[in-house]
């Protein structure tokens, strides 16, 4: 049995998610060719699990029942466990499923009761996709530099939202989501709003991407979109507790999940070599074993970073390290796997070809590797990482959670 930082409860979740992920493999290949066919896969256990995650019990979420355990996906460690295994099946389909997804983390951090009732209520009506719009064409995912504007209405009614967003997954099939916008200059001028995609002025156009095609990554145009005051997230808080603070808290909690997806892609490449390449020579076995060790090591780091961020949402430097390393691993592992099948591996093995393309898609997700490294460095010089026990929450055995991540 492979060592793990997971307890029995989380191991149960991992084992179930591994079975769900196995079903994703065949479906994912088809979606790579026809992303709009995602609706045909809503009955898969993994897709239903994703839809059940990030909806708290107090808002009607049924959660996942596995033996004596119940999961709502409210903690970063639960999400990391599930996302890795589903991405190990197919990262594209994993990202293409309906559910609260990334928006759900922000809503959990920042929304008030009425906003949560609206958001979760919509999700519980039917399989509903959401989107999370931060990145802008000219500004990337630097929240401090965004330009999309949220302006008060001249008549005193709803706010107006104007701007462009890019690289937003599922936006063209989503019914609702969150948009980051600016109400004024500086970090206190950053805010986030809930948006109904049926509202006039909202337009999402899918982009043709190299990988993760099932996720239908889109460009958004927001032209005078009406945003009622009650859809402004954190409206009951001071600007200091809703703008960049909320961004940081949210991204810290999202980062282990993105890292876990990358680990899942790497593990899928490793799995493929193990199952499809027979008669490995001694040196090849050593190479494959080495890759397996590296995947194990990064997985441990990712899961421990999730446990730490669950214990303290401001402790995200570890997750930055994990994310940067996991994404590099995904690229290296998929290329390494190709090396076991010769120079035409990607021509002859569609699975490897897809994995190599998908791996590139996680590198920039939620901040590119070089940006994550700068965050790690800042944490080091600030004394928040690199000294003492890097995993105090795990050492204190406060890992498993199960309630809201706040």
């Amino acid at each position, binding site marked *: 049995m492979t*060592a*793990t*930082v997971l307890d029995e409860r989380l191991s149960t979740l991992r084992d179930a998610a591994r079975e769900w992920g196995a079903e994703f493999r065949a479906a994912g290949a088809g979606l790579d060719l026809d992303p709009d066919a995602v609706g045909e896969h809503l009955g898969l256990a993994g897709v239903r699990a994703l839809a059940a995650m990030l909806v708290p019990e107090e808002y009607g979420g049924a959660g996942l029942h596995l033996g004596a355990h119940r999961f709502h996906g409210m903690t970063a460690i639960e999400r990391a466990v599930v996302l890795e295994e589903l991405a190990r099946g197919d990262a594209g389909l994993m990202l293409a499923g309906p559910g609260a997804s990334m928006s759900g983390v922000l809503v959990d951090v920042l929304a008030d009761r009425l906003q949560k009732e609206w958001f979760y209520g919509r999700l519980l009506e039917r399989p509903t996709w959401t989107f999370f719009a931060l990145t802008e064409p000219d500004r990337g995912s630097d929240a401090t530099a965004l330009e999309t504007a949220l302006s008060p209405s001249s008549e005193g009614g709803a706010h107006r939202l104007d701007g462009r967003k890019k690289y937003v997954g599922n936006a063209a099939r989503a019914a609702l989501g969150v948009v980051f916008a600016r109400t004024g200059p500086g970090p206190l001028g950053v805010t986030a709003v809930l948006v109904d995609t049926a509202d006039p002025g909202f337009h999402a156009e899918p982009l043709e991407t190299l990988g993760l095609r099932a996720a239908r990554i889109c460009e958004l145009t927001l032209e005078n979109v009406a945003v009622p005051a009650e859809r402004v997230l954190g409206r009951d808080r001071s600007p200091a507790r809703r703008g960049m603070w909320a961004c940081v808290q949210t991204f810290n909690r999202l980062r282990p999940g993105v890292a876990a997806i990358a680990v899942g892609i790497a593990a899928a490449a490793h799995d493929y070599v193990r199952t499809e390449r027979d008669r490995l020579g001694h040196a090849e076995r050593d190479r494959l*074993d*080495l890759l397996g*060790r*590296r995947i*194990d*090591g*990064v997985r*441990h*780091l990712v899961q*421990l970073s999730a446990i730490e961020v669950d214990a303290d949402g401001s402790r995200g430097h*570890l997750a930055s*390290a*994990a994310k*940067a*390393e996991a994404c590099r691993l995904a690229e290296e592992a998929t290329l390494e796997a190709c090396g076991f099948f010769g120079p035409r591996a990607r021509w002859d093995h569609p699975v490897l070809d897809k994995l190599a393309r998908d791996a590139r898609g996680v590198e920039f997700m939620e901040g590119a590797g*070089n940006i*994550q*490294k*700068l*965050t*790690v*460095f800042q944490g*080091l*010089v600030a004394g928040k*990482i*690199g000294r003492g026990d*890097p*995993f105090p929450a*795990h050492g204190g055995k406060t890992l498993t959670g199960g309630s809201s991540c706040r």
Partner: protein
Amino acid sequence: MTTISPPITATWLRCHDTARAEGMAPALAVLHAALPAGTSVFGAGGAAVRPAGPADRDGDVLVVRTAQLPGGAVVLVRTHRPASHPDPILTTGSVWLRLGLSGALLDTGLAYLGGRRSGDTTLLRRQMVQGAVAEALTGQLEVRAFLTAHDPAPPPEALSYLHRRLTETDRVLLRLLGAAGFTRGGAGEVADVSELLAGAYTPEAVA
């Protein structure tokens, strides 16, 4: 052979912390003190790294190198005594020790880079340098995560990987030190001896 049990974790941490704060020789002393009486400090290939001392003059021990390192001198020694599997305290402990040394190398690197001018700023303010520092720290965190997940001891077949990861990490930091990491007696030599320490205690079958 010693069986590793959970209380040994305190020894690992002491070994790690001593290596980072005081240096290789004191950390080796901590590690060797944890061995059952009479246990050989030699690895399977008959190689060992130990604090310099009277035992260097044992008749069947050949000192192949003496390194004057921060914290005290260490000797690299070989013996022709029949090889045996090194004690697991040595094999796992050497990973923790090297992780502590790698942390000390990071500390040294930060001090060096913070004081070294480059144009109108310091090397430490260069983003490429910051990225490399982060990469090295991440390598250390990955090794620590592996050891944490496999507490109290990783499987023998994983030791080679962990040592290799530490060597890669140290090399990233050494490149930041430039020629300052190439002189004897300093951080560069600690890293060099650390690599040789890995070679001494990595189990032969998986080396």
